[in-house]
Structures are given as C-alpha cells and as structure tokens.
C-alpha cells in the first residue's frame, strides 16, 4: 500500500504551508480559469445566455493547489468504460481529475485502496486514468456549452435560434406531447401489432447509462407508454457480439472476457484493448502484467493496432473473414485431437471438474434440426445424449457423460417413435471439415502456417488460452457467425469459469432493486402502463409471430428487416423506418446525447433528408450539452448538465473485472436548493452555469412548495427536465406516490414521492446499500461500492475459488443455435444456419455484395487511445495530441496511387459520399485496406461558425472540424437504399464491409 503511505506523509505534514509554484511557469490553473472567466464574460453579454451570477459556480479561483481541495469520487463518462473518477474541487471549481483509487478500473488488485479505508484517508491517493477521462474537465467548462433553451428561427437546420425561458420551452413541449400521448387507442385497429398511439412518441438516447435509463424508462415506457422508449445506439456499437453470446447461452450472458491476470495465451479478434474497449485502461494494464509474466498474445486485425504492436503474433486478416481464421484453427485442433474432451463430453453443469458445459453431446433431430428433447418426471425439458449404446436424458447420463460421435442413432424420446439423430459435435465437425486449413487460410488472406501455429499454441494453453472477439469480427453482415466461430474456440479449450480462462465477471449490485430482500423496485410506476406493439426498429420481435397482420399483408420479403434475436435497438433502422413509416409513422422525436448521422454508417444523408421533413417528424426536441450533429435540426433544444453534474448508477464495467462493481456517479460541482415537501428534505440540483431548478419551478407553480429562488436558467438535469414535463402532463410516475415501498428495509431514507432527481437516486443508493452492506454515506464518499466491502482487494479469494473464478457462469454454452435453425428470416423466408460458418458479405436479401473494381480499398475504422467516439473532440488537450486523423494506407497502395506521404486525398464511397483527408503511409496495415480513426471530422459540436442565437454568433472552434469522418462514406444496402449494410441476425450496422476510391487532390 505504497499510496496509502503517501497519505500518511501528508497527514504528518499538515501544518506545512501550501507548496508554492514560484519556479513554475506562470501558466497555471489560475490563467486557465481566467480564460474561462473571460469567455463567460463574453457569454454574459448575450441576453439570457449566461449572466455573471449564473457563472458563480465556476468563478476563477486564485490558488491552484495540488494537494488541498475537496475530493468527490464519481464515475467518468468520456467513454463507456465506467471507470471511477476522483474530482478535486477548490471553492466550487473543478481543478483536477484523477482515477478513483477504490475503483478496480483505476487500480489493479495489488494497488487498489481497500474499501474499508475511510475516504478522508485516501484523499491524496490517485487512481489511474486515461487521457480522455483526465480531459473531461474541458468538456465541463467547454465554452460551446449551451446555457439556455433554444427555439429555432426559420427552417430546421438553419442554425438560427432564439433563447427562450425554461417555462416557455417546457410548456410548449408538454402541450404538444399531450396531443399525441394516448396509451389506450390503437394506431390502426387492423394492425394491433403497431401498438398504441403513444408509440408515435420516440425517445432516442444515443448513449444512456444505468440510473439515467431507468429514469427515462419510467417516463417514456411506464408513464407515456411508448414502445419506442429507448432507441439507443448499441446496434452501431457491438450488438452482434451480444446477440451471438445471447444465442449461445440461451440469453443468460452476452459477454465474457478473459481473466487476463492469470491467462497464458490470449487472442484478441478485432479488438484493441490497448486503445479502446471497456475498460481500456484496466485491460491494458492487466495486459502489461500478463506480458511481464510471460503470457503470449495474438491480435487478429487488418490494422497493426497498439495491441498488435504489443503482441507476439499479428494476424492481418482480411476484413470480414475472422470466421475463416477461427474455423481454420478449429479444423487444426479437431484434426489433431487437441480439444478438451472431458469438458466437451460433460452433459450438465458442475461435474467432472468443470463448472460450465456445452451442447456437444446433445442429439439433434435429422428431420427438423431441433434438439431432441422430452420432459422429465418433474416436467423439466431435458436434452438427449448418447452413452453406452443407448440415449439418456442429459441430467441422467452415466457419469454425466455423453459420446461426441456415436454416428447416426435412432432414439425414442418417450412417445414410441424412433427419431434419427446425430450429435451437435458431429454436425460441428462436419461443418468445420467442409474446408481445409489451406482453404480457410486462403479466405482469411493469411499463411496456412499462421493458422496452424496459433491453433497449436492456443490449444496448448488449454484452460488458460482464451479467444476474445469484439467489434472487428462482428460489425459485418456476417457478424454473428464471426462471433460464433470464435466462441467455438473457447469451447474447444473448455475455458469457461477457469482461473485464467473465460470469465463472466463479478457483476454489480442492483440499484434498481429486485435482487435482495428489503430493496424496492426503482422502475415500478404505480398507476403506470405497459407499452404495446412492436418498436419501430423491430428488434426482439419475430415477423410472423409478433406482427401477424403485417406478415399477412406483405409476406416475404418484409418491407424492412426484423431483428428477432437482437435484444437491443436497431439504431441504424430508426430514421429509414421513420422515412418509410414502417411499421407505422411517428409524430415526435426526442433525442438525448445523440450523434446518429455522425456515428452511424452511411446515415448522414438519410438523417438530414428525413429530419427536415415536418410530415415525417412533426415535432423534434433535442436534449444536449451543445449544438451537435443531431440537435442542430431540433425545433427546441434543451441544455443539459454534463455528466460531471449528474447522478447515475453506470453498470459494472466488463467481465474483465472478476469482482462486483457498483458505480455511483454524482455531481462534482454545482449547488442545491433544499425544501421540505411531505415531511422530507427534497434536494433540487443546480448545475454549473445554472441558477434555479426546473423541477423545483414546476412544483412551486403547482403550489406544492414555495420560495423566492430565481426561475431556472442554464443547463438542467435530464431527470428534472422530464419531471417538469411529466408533471405538466399529469402523468403517473412523478410527484406523490411515485414508488411502491412495499417491503422496503427499515432504517433507510426511502422516498415514496418523486419531486426531484435526488428522490430517485436516494432510493437507488438505499438499494445498493441493502444489497452490499456498505452504508449510503460510504457509497457517496467512495463513488460507489466495490467488492470486497471488507478485506483486501489483493486477497485472491475475493476473485477466485481455487482454480476457478469465484463468480461463475456455471451453465450451458452452445456450439449449435437451435433458434437459428427454426426461425425464418424476414427478408428471405428461409431459416438460418445453426452453426458457425464463413458467410460472404451480403445485402439484406442474402445476395453477396460483388466487389466493385472502381472502389478497390476496404475501409476499416478504429479508436485512438486518446479519443472516444463522438464526444471527446471538444477537449483541447486531446486535440493537441493529434489535431487531425489520417487516411492510413500501406505504402504499396500509396505508390500504386502515385501518392506522397501526407498528400491530400479525396475518398469516395460506393454511396457517392466524399470526404477529404491527409494520407499517411504505414507498414502496419494490410495492403488493400484503408484505416481511419473515428472521432474527427465533425461538422457541428461547437465547430460550426454559422450558428446564431438572437442574432449573435455562438462560440465556435474550427479545430473541431478537422480530420475526416469515415462513417458517412460507408455503403448502403443495395435493396433498401436508405440504410447501411446490416447483420440481420445480430442487428448490427456493418462498419467494415465498405470500400472506397482514393484520389489525390493536392500536396
């Protein structure tokens, strides 16, 4: 605990004068804040944008001080890793961000501060923090932040605004929503699957995390009752990965990660944890330790990523052909009998030294491809396996063992019939052997020996050999099959639940309730409604079963694809579906933290065409911290507080953390209005740049409370905004009796009423405390609750149980996905293939996309370690590291194109879109592939110089427009034409199947 010793030094030095900085350059926090102040003063000249008084929370502070100040532990939001953040605040001004030393993302087990150490004692201990997170301070104090609700003047997207009061904005929004809100009447009685009229209100948060999303669900799902209550971005992120693992685990776990600290051999398929992924900084650190221990690492990626640079083997696979590499490995492992036979022959969980098990021995019917099943004596459906010349129900097989390949067998499932069956293993082996290793190598575009070498070493590592896929293999039209092929490798090694193997992670406590006695349901809305019908993005819904009338009308192909296996939202389908009014037209779009046309492949033209059409989107409200690529088109923009001025319970990080993580995000700056209502002190949050609170204003005008506080101005909390709208509409779920406190544990400050965001988060904190035993005060002081609540984080028994992970999946992982074999695709009417396979890149009718020689370069995208997706470009410290990104190509291609390094080039996509950028040659890319990082090339986000409020130009920084954005160049589906290519099974937007033309423009 070296860092604790640091603190001890500090304590004994208490009377020491503050360190002086007289030998330091004069450019210090003081100057930084004076600059901020100067910009605030400029803003103050704009009527109703920001007055001097409003700027009070960030008034310049005179003494930059490295060791004193107030420490508030919270959670970062510069990417989705949900790392802890330790904010140092002096006189209300945020002066420094570090990692939260209690948080497992910010500190490895051997250096993490034990949860039992009081926060005051850890005040000067810093956790680690990536470049993005540390620069978050610049997002909080970004001069481009909105300071007032804005109403558009002139047509949508004109960039001309007038500042309006919160009262006017919320009155107008509530009045319009009331005209649409109707959770009882069918949209069309002939098509009940379209649901109720409330479905015409669409809430689309691009990014929203735990706590915040539970709150917005409360309003949109349970009060308004729209099936379109949370159209979020996951389908442009990793969703085919999640869908694949959901299918492989019967929806029990969508994500596994290696236990890196104890693994021996890691294969990263299309993911670069040294640059991105969550949590980049935690996984990267563990990878460093892994390598120091002598672990071997392979990176499969057409780009030589930083992770590849630190790997023993780089596999520059052909984009989209990850499955070929993985199945080639499977072929070698099977041919050389290097698979884990003990694991694969187990027929149930927790037997023969294994925790989880596979379906390798399960019998599949030859007639319909379903598992052969029957109900046992207690009514539980069981699978059949073969052992010793006869079939057994899987839970009764002798020794819990089945044969991998008894050949074709005839089995009576108990109804007197004889059914021809074969095992999953035999089907899988037959599939894998459809191609030779040489053929797989040819498809993957790599040497055969590379597949063989990696297969040999991977299988030799056994339980401690793990293959991990993320976006690379799955953001293709064949994404689910890529993930399934890689998942099969982990089954061949039988590595699930083993120390150093594939781990489901330590999970999180349930702030939302439902996990421990004494918790309450944070989501349940007394008097609320349930949405009816299909969401407009048609995810989780089966075309024939869930939309029988639409199916009867249209048959095959459906008008647009359905995504029955995807449990997230089909974000890329939102605007195209609105355009076509399929399955129904909408009225109102409300966005929150949304950058759809910037972030979604080939979406800019469709978005901009649809969003300006007032017959397609009659009313458009954006909730945003600045004017972004989406909010630019809003009828009304509501300014929101940043995530350093927000409460949430961001879900635990990834399974990479083997111990439980209960995050608590909280404001690090700002102030509160406190009022007693119904016997309890209600806390109304006043963010930086704000005065007053919109929820408080609402209850005051409703006569519930009183006071002389000024009317709200400036950015406000998302939750308080929604309370003010729902309150005006008279919806359930806010105000008195908004929670059902039945069964709530005694001794907590439970809130039955919901007057402000704090009432909601107080209940969530109580739930976290009830489940973990940490006090609410501790959770607040430490920015969450992190296991172990008692004891040392470096104690191995916290994360491990002997040779196994302590937190175990202990369940079935499939090689064979029956649901694929039995579900018809909505566009072709054909069932899917149940086994991993190499599938060509295809359109929505499963027709392979022919290569076009005019567009010879396949484009891939990636993240730098020092930028996130759409929300980091406003931080000058990050801009300064690299002011613009490059079009990265192999010098062979550069010479072929007659280019010099750093020439200006124009890229043209097959969708006709163009963009220019500077080319950079690198040997670290597969010839024929062009790589562009995704975070540059914005066209709004505080970069557009032509935005005016009340006739005065808003602040803009042209540096935010620098560089090139790859997503608008991506290919459109040739059949649907207004959307990108998609993985119909996984639900993903395709990111890595597009090709471009490159032309020299200048030097």
């Amino acid at each position: 605990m070296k860092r604790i010793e640091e603190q001890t030094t500090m304590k004994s030095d208490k009377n020491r004068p503050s360190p002086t900085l007289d030998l330091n350059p004069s450019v210090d926090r003081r100057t930084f804040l004076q600059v901020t102040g100067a910009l605030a003063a400029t803003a103050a000249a704009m009527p109703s944008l920001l007055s001097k008084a409003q700027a009070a929370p960030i008034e310049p502070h005179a003494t930059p001080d490295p060791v004193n100040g107030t420490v508030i532990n919270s959670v970062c939001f510069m990417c989705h890793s949900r790392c802890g953040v330790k904010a140092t605040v002096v006189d209300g001004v945020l002066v420094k961000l570090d990692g939260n030393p209690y948080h497992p993302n910010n500190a490895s087990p051997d250096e993490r501060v034990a949860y039992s150490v009081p926060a005051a004692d850890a005040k000067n201990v810093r956790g680690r923090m990536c470049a993005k997170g540390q620069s978050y301070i610049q997002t909080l104090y970004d001069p481009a932040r909105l300071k007032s609700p804005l109403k558009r003047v002139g047509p949508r997207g004109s960039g001309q605004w007038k500042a309006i009061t919160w009262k006017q904005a919320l009155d107008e929004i509530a009045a319009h929503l009331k005209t649409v809100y109707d959770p009882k009447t069918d949209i069309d009685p002939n098509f009940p699957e379209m649901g109720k009229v409330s479905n015409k209100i669409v809430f689309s948060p691009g990014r929203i995390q735990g706590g915040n999303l539970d709150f917005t669900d409360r309003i949109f799902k349970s009060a308004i009752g729209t099936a379109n209550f949370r159209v979020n971005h996951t389908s442009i992120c990793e969703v085919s990965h999640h869908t694949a693992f959901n299918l492989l685990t019967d929806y029990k776990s969508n994500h596994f990660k290696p236990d890196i600290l104890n693994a021996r051999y890691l294969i990263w398929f299309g993911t670069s944890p040294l640059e991105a992924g969550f949590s980049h900084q935690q996984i990267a650190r563990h990878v460093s330790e892994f390598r120091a221990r002598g672990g071997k690492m392979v990176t499969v990626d057409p780009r030589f990523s930083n992770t590849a640079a630190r790997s023993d083997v780089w596999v520059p696979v052909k984009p989209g052909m990850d499955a070929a590499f993985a199945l080639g490995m499977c072929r070698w492992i099977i041919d050389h009998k290097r698979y884990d036979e003990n694991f694969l022959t187990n027929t149930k969980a927790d037997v023969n030294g294994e925790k989880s098990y596979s379906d390798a021995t399960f019998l599949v019917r030859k007639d319909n491809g379903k598992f052969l099943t029957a109900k046992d004596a207690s009514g539980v459906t069981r699978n059949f396996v073969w052992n010793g010349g006869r079939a057994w129900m899987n839970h009764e097989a002798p020794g819990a063992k089945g044969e991998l390949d008894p050949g074709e067998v005839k089995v009576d499932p108990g109804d007197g019939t004889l059914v021809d069956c074969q095992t999953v293993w035999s089907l899988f082996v037959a599939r894998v052997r459809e191609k030779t290793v040489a053929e797989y190598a040819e498809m993957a575009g790599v040497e055969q020996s590379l597949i063989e070498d990696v297969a040999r070493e991977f299988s030799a590592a056994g339980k401690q050999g793990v293959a991990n896929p993320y976006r690379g293999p799955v953001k293709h039209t064949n994404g689910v099959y890529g993930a399934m092929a890689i998942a099969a490798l982990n089954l061949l090694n039988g590595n699930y639940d083993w120390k150093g193997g594939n781990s489901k992670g330590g999970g999180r406590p349930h702030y939302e309730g439902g996990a421990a006695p004494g918790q309450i349901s944070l989501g349940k809305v007394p008097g609320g409604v349930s949405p009816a019908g299909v969401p407009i993005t048609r995810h989780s819904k089966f075309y024939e079963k869930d939309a029988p009338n639409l199916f009867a009308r249209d048959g095959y192909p459906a008008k647009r694809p359905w995504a029955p296996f995807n449990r997230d939202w089909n974000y890329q389908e939102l605007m195209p579906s609105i355009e076509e009014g399929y399955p129904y037209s909408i009225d109102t779009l409300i966005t929150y933290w949304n950058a759809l046309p910037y972030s979604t492949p080939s979406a800019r033209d469709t978005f901009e065409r649809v969003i300006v059409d007032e017959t397609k989107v009659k009313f458009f409200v954006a909730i945003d911290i600045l004017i972004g690529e989406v909010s630019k088109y809003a009828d009304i923009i509501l300014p929101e507080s940043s995530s350093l001025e927000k409460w949430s319970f961001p879900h635990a990080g990834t399974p990479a953390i083997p111990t439980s993580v209960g995050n608590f995000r909280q404001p690090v700056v700002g102030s509160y209005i406190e009022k007693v209502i119904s016997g309890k002190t209600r806390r109304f949050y006043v963010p930086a740049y704000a005065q007053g609170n919109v929820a408080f204003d609402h209850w005051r005008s409703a006569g519930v409370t009183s006071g002389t506080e000024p009317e709200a101005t400036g950015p406000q909390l998302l939750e308080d905004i929604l309370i003010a709208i729902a309150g005006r509409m008279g919806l359930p779920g806010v105000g008195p009796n908004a929670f059902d406190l039945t069964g709530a544990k005694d001794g907590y400050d439970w809130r039955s009423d919901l007057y402000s965001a704090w009432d909601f988060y107080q209940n969530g904190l109580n739930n976290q405390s009830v489940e973990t035993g940490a006090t609410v005060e501790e959770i607040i002081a430490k920015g969450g609750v992190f296991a172990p609540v008692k004891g040392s984080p470096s104690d191995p028994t916290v994360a491990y149980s002997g040779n196994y992970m302590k937190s175990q999946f202990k369940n079935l992982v499939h090689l064979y996905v029956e649901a694929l074999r039995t579900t018809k695709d909505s566009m072709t009417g054909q069932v899917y293939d149940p086994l991993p396979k190499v599938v060509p890149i295809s359109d929505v009718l499963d027709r392979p996309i022919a290569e076009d020689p005019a567009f010879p370069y396949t484009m891939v995208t990636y993240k730098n370690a020092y930028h996130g997706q759409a929300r980091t470009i406003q931080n000058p410290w990050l801009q300064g590291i690299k002011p613009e990104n490059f079009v990265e190509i192999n010098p062979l291609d550069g010479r072929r194109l007659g280019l010099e390094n750093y020439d200006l080039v124009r890229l043209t996509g097959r969708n006709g879109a163009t963009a220019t950028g500077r080319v950079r040659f690198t040997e670290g890319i597969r010839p024929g592939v062009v790589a562009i990082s995704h975070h540059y090339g914005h066209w709004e986000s505080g970069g557009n110089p032509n935005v005016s409020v009340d006739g005065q130009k808003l602040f803009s920084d042209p540096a935010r427009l620098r560089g090139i954005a790859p997503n608008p160049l991506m290919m459109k589906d040739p059949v649907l034409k207004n959307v990108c290519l998609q993985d119909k099974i996984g639900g993903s937007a395709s990111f890595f199947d597009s090709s471009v033309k490159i032309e020299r423009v200048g030097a």
Partner: protein
Amino acid sequence: MTQIGWILDLTKCVGCHACTVACKSENNTAPQISPLVMRNGRAITVDWRRVTEIERGTYPKVAREFVSMACNHCLEPACMKSCPVGAITKRDKDGIVLIDQEKCNGCRYCVWACPWGAPRFSEITHKVEKCTFCVQRIDAGLQPACVTTCVGRALTFGYDVGPTREVPEGFADPQLTGAQIRFVR
C-alpha cells in the same frame, strides 16, 4: 545529494498518452481552453511530456515502440549551461532542473542545447517551459502526475536510477549530459 530520475519500462508502455494529459492537467500547460489555436496546420501546444511512437519493419513484419519522454533532469544539464540569463537551476537536494519564468527571456538556446527536446517554447508566454518533475508534489511527498496515472504501470521514478544501459532507437547518448532515465526492456 541524491538525484531523482525516471524509470520507463518499455515493455509496459501501451502508448495511451495518459501521461501527456496528466502532465498538462497537473501543470496547466497550453492549450487550456477552446478554441485550439492552430498555425500552419500545427496546434499551439506546450507539452512537457510527450509519447513518441517509433514504427519499424515492413509489412507484415512490423514493430512499434512507445517512448514517454519529459525532461531527464540531467547531471550536467546542457540547457543550464546554454542559458545566458541564469534562469535554469538544478536543485541541490534532488537534482530537479527548473526554469525560472521571471528570468527566462525566451531566447530558446536551451531548446537547441537539449539532446532530448525537453524545453518547450511557449508561443503564448514567449518563454521556455519544461517538466518540473511536479516539484510541488515531490516536495509534498507525492508522486509526479504522470507516474500516478500511468495506465500500463510503465513509468515510475526513483533516486540515483543510474545511467541507462538500454536506449530506444533514436535516443541520444545518455552519457552526453547524464540523463536521469533508466529504460527497462
């Protein structure tokens, strides 16, 4: 006198630039606030610590190395010798080399003299700044900001770390000035 110095484990640096930003955040170096000032396509930044990426080889046999670099607080600082106004001093107790911003006249001789490129001319103050080893934190018994944040746990510091034996490609001979950095590989 004990002499403070850096220890950089080149096998653990992940090239994430967290140290670059930790230094900027701790010491408030430019750019501090939007808009980013650009001149001739270059951002006006003053980075006391930077990460250099060195790429070698030919596809598909490629290698990339990351080297995080700040001031090496040399035993015989070339910058100090070059300074015509005596603005650069070396502390007796730990050998930290500092530039007095009151005395610096912005002549930039030190920028040319330093074999490591540590002194940085600020186009904002028209003086030269550089890494101070977070002297305010060292004096308070704390670690420098780049060390506390290092994502890969590659960067640490110590005393009398000795002349480095192993240097990355392109790194000047440490014996020239007695650079206080030890590379681990």
